[in-house]
């Protein structure tokens, strides 16, 4: 039988390497298993020369390997040296296949070679290493591969590359590069365009196709693999091609199956869920297996390395190790009243705030790093009506009052300890609907949107609680009229939360149905069929309702209501709502008034349609164009009136000159319809796509609603890939320019605007600036500048305007357009 190690570490990234180095330093018998032939494959596969950042800057690094921000090569060389110096026992090309056994005697099966035995296992496999597999029949045949090491190896073959990302395109180009190799290369793309790949790669690909060196098949996916053949499904039907080799590059996903097969349980079925762990990183369902690093939910290198150190300490029996983030938490909590220790505070918050009850101490620690805890004096405002904010608040101690009536701050609704508030802003991304003040000395925990969403994904109870409270409060807030939670409990009992796809209708014109809908997130457009054509009637943002006419009058639906973007609506059944209306005449009156106003708008458009058919058609088609451009999820968008734009690009120059010399907008690019041009510039979406996967959590929403990137950006480029509008670029600020007057008088420097590449290259050579990383940059709406967005101020003709969609899509525009 082979040697029994004290610790086997799977994965040699920052987390695994740090654990192995510490084990080696402590003289613990260990083995580090790495699937490839080099350490830290994820960072190894970074592009050459990439600058790797070390955030969070405040976190102290506690590890036996060095790490500081710098070039990929330098960091990898440092780690190689550290591993050698520490005497790490590393096994390359050792890919774990399965884990069996119990604490004290685990067996790790490898794809090649003898199994490994260990008392404890540290899983540090990250989330990058497992390629997504082809799922069609025959995908297991040996000529399907997920890696291409040397494109020069293959000659005279029919090769299909599956996948439309950079990896797939680069492989396909490599295989087709040398005509003498005689390969027939085809690349398959499931969608119509190559949206996920770098532009340069796509351009090269198109050029290679135009030159006849390869074939591109879009909207095509493989359905059957046979030896020597592949069958694909195209929009025109399926066809069978000769095929000697398939290279599938369809991205990677966390290796959940492997982890679950080892006996570890996950917090939920959500793809973003993490394994459930104890405070010492040990699996709660499988003792002896420890999970650290990205797989445990910590994507930053510093976190990973600290955990590597900590986990070895834990395994060797240390129980009172002070976590590396302890000083951070201490600092965060020091302003609070009472002299509790960090762990006492954690326990206090966890037990008091209802939605935090389900968290483990380890999760609680991580959670608090993202959140803020504050104490408020009685009467102190926590947030003000119409503030921008998407964070959620939990009341740990005390109570708050909500000023429900903007005209009279004395009318308040109390919320007590343990409950939450701010959930409407969290879910809809819109401004705060009411001012909230502490009514007694209060301690609240403020949870930023990303942390709140993570919490809801991890803890199902938290999700249910937030959903229940949200529906109740939203109904109260929309209908006001002195309703209490007791009044609407019957209505809410039958409420149904529905996800709606873009373009999907929740109400169809002419249908006989009478439910009422509340738009929780996203937005809806109302259309009516006039003269055989759908005419845009109005735009319904989140926090509003639709469907009241049929509900109140029991008549068929008068218009179609469909989602402008992916939205969430709450369906309220009609019967209990009518009963509520009968009990509450004030509410009935209020709804009657609003319904009359909506009906007048509809009547106005119908009337205009008869008289000025063209103007209404125009209004309708412009509205539809803007919705298609994603304006429905925008909060503030830059539009250019092409009947006024002289193409001077002063907007771009102004943008560059007020932001470190880099322009965040591209005037010429983007789409146009009927004189309205939507340039490539940030729309500050309600739920920004760019925020969804930012490892250092650097993308936030500012006080004026702007979505901005803070200086903790690590330059990973996730946001650039996530943005469907292409408004984020990766770049480094150019060196400072000579002043405007020395340019005007003596022609020094490149003049106003973003300096061209040549000048930047020449100017940065002279300076001693050294290496600076490429970071994500985007529009910040010129926040902090008194005059507002520079692009609008600097437009000489008034062509550039910034608008919010509900203002822009208002019916008030029709008569002016017609007149």
């Amino acid at each position, binding site marked *: 039988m082979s040697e029994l190690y004290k610790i086997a570490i799977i994965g040699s990234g920052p987390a695994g390497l740090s654990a192995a180095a510490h084990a080696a330093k402590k003289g613990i018998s260990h083995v580090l298993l790495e699937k490839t032939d080099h350490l830290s494959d994820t960072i190894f596969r970074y592009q050459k020369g990439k600058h790797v950042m070390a955030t969070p800057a405040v976190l102290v690094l506690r590890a036996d390997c060095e790490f500081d921000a710098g070039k990929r090569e330098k960091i990898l060389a440092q780690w190689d040296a550290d591993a050698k110096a520490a005497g790490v026992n590393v096994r390359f090309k050792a890919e774990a296949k399965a884990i069996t056994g119990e604490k004290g005697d685990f067996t790790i099966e490898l794809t090649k070679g003898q199994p490994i035995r260990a008392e404890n296992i540290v899983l540090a496999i990250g989330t990058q290493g497992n390629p997504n597999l082809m799922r069609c029949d025959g995908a297991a045949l040996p000529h399907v591969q997920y890696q291409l090491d040397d494109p020069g190896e293959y000659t005279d073959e029919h090769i299909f590359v599956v996948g439309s990302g950079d990896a797939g395109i680069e492989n396909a180009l490599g295989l087709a590069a040398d005509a003498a190799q005689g390969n027939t290369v085809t690349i398959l793309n499931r969608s119509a365009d190559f949206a996920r790949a770098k532009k340069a790669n796509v351009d090269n690909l198109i050029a290679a196709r135009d*030159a006849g060196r390869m074939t591109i098949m879009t909207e095509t996916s493989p359905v059957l693999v046979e030896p020597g053949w592949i069958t694909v499904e195209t929009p025109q039907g399926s066809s069978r091609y000769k095929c000697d080799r398939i290279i599938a590059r369809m991205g990677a996903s966390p290796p959940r199956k492997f982890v679950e097969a080892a006996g570890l349980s996950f917090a939920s079925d959500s793809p973003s869920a993490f394994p459930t762990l104890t405070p010492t990183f040990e699996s709660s369902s499988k003792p002896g297996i420890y999970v650290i690093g990205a797989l445990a939910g910590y994507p930053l290198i510093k976190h990973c390395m600290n955990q590597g150190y900590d986990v070895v300490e834990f395994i060797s029996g240390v129980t009172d190790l002070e976590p590396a983030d302890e000083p951070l938490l201490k600092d965060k909590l020091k302003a609070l009243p009472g002299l509790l220790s960090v762990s006492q505070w954690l326990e206090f918050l966890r037990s008091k705030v209802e939605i935090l009850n389900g968290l483990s101490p380890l999760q609680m620690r991580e959670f608090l790093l993202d959140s803020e805890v504050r104490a408020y004096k009685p009467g102190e405002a926590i947030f003000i009506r119409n503030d921008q904010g998407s964070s959620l608040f939990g009341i740990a101690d005390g109570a708050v009052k909500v000023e429900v009536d903007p005209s009279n701050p004395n009318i308040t609704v109390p919320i007590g300890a343990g409950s939450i508030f701010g959930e409407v802003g969290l879910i809809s991304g819109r401004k705060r609907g009411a001012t909230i003040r502490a009514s007694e000395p209060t301690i609240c925990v403020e949870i930023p949107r990303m942390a709140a969403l993570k919490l809801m994904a991890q803890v199902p109870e938290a999700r249910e609680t937030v959903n229940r409270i949200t529906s109740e409060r939203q109904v109260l807030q929309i209908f006001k009229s002195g309703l209490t939670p007791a009044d609407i409990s019957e209505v809410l009992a039958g409420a149904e939360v529905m996800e709606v796809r873009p373009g999907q209708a929740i109400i169809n014109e002419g249908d006989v149905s009478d439910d009422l809908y509340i738009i929780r997130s996203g937005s809806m457009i109302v259309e009516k069929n006039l003269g055989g054509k759908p005419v845009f009637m109005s735009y319904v943002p989140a926090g509003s309702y639709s469907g009241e006419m049929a509900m109140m009058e029991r008549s068929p639906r008068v218009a179609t209501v469909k989602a402008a973007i992916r939205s969430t609506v709450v369906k309220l059944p009609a019967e209990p709502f009518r009963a509520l209306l009968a009990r509450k005449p004030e509410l009935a009156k209020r709804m009657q008034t609003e319904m009359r106003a909506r009906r007048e708008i509809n009547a106005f458009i119908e009337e205009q349609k008869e008289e000025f058919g063209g103007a209404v058609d125009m209004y309708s088609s412009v509205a539809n164009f803007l919705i298609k451009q994603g304006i429905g999820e925008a909060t503030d968008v830059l539009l250019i*009136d*092409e009947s006024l734009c002289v193409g001077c690009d002063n907007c771009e120059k102004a943008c560059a000159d007020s932001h470190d010399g880099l322009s965040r907008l591209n005037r010429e690019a983007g789409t146009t319809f009927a004189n309205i041009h939507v340039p490539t510039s940030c729309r500050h979406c309600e739920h920004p796509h760019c925020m969804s996967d930012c490892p250092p959590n650097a993308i936030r929403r500012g006080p004026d609603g702007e979505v901005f990137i803070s200086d903790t950006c690590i330059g990973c480029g996730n946001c650039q890939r996530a943005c469907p509008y292409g408004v984020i670029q990766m770049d480094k600020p150019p060196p400072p320019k000579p002043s405007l007057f020395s340019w005007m008088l003596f022609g020094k420097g490149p003049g106003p605007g973003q300096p061209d590449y040549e000048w930047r290259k020449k100017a940065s050579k002279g300076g001693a600036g050294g290496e600076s990383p490429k970071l994500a940059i985007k529009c910040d709406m010129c926040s902090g500048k008194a005059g507002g967005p520079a692009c609008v101020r600097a437009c000489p003709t008034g062509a550039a305007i910034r608008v919010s969609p509900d203002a822009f899509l208002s019916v008030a525009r029709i008569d002016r357009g017609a007149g």
Partner: protein
Amino acid sequence: MRQRTHEGFLRHKGFRWAQIATLLCLVVVAVYFFVAARLAEPPSGGSWLGYTLGTISAGLIVWLACLGIRKRVITAGHYSLKAWVSAHVYLGLSLTVLATLHTGFQFGWNVHTLAYVLMMLVIASGALGIWAYATLPQRLHGNRGETTRKQMLEAIESLDKQLHDLAQPLDRAGAQVVRLSLEQTEIGGGFWRRLTGAHGDCANLRAMRKLKQLPAPATPRQAEALARIETVLQQKADVLGLARRQMQITALLEGWLFVHIPATFALLAALTAHVVSVFTYW
């Protein structure tokens, strides 16, 4: 389809600066004729009215010239370049009245009249600019659709790459034709050429003509290549046409500035000479 908050520079704030400029002109004209009626000859630049009008006009000229700086200094405070342009246009036009009355209709071959003539030249070129800004943007954007300048250049570059590859099987004469298009095609050219859009001697066009005169190809492979080259040359001609029309409209939008700006600097020099000589010799 415009919102009330969305007005062009000419309509800015309901023609506020047009109203101010008109009022200014009306007041000045009224005062002038009121004063002139009591004098034997019209008031010259040397009278109190002349000095007043001269000071206002000179101040306006300097302020109007500052637009060039305002446009380029992006400060953080409240300002709207559109409002500046609006005021620049209407107050600039009002100078035709103010400065003419300042002269007292006394002209001669001297630096004083030179300053006046230069000023009128600046205003006339500016009027051309107003016409250009009011009418050309539609054409500018109508022409390009959603293609950017960069995309046009990239399209030409990629067509060139295709031509290069396609020309490989050709004989010497055929290759020469492709080289003509590849090496000598000029997209823009000098300002005058861009403005007039006269590209009759375009190398790509000549290559297309020469291609038709080539002797019959020797092999079917060459014949196929030639047929494809003809298509690509035509595609290139289309993209060139698009890019050149774009450059022509841009040149029209910028062309007046080539008079307006140098004339402004000449005016500032002549104005300085005018003011200095008036105070030195009178």
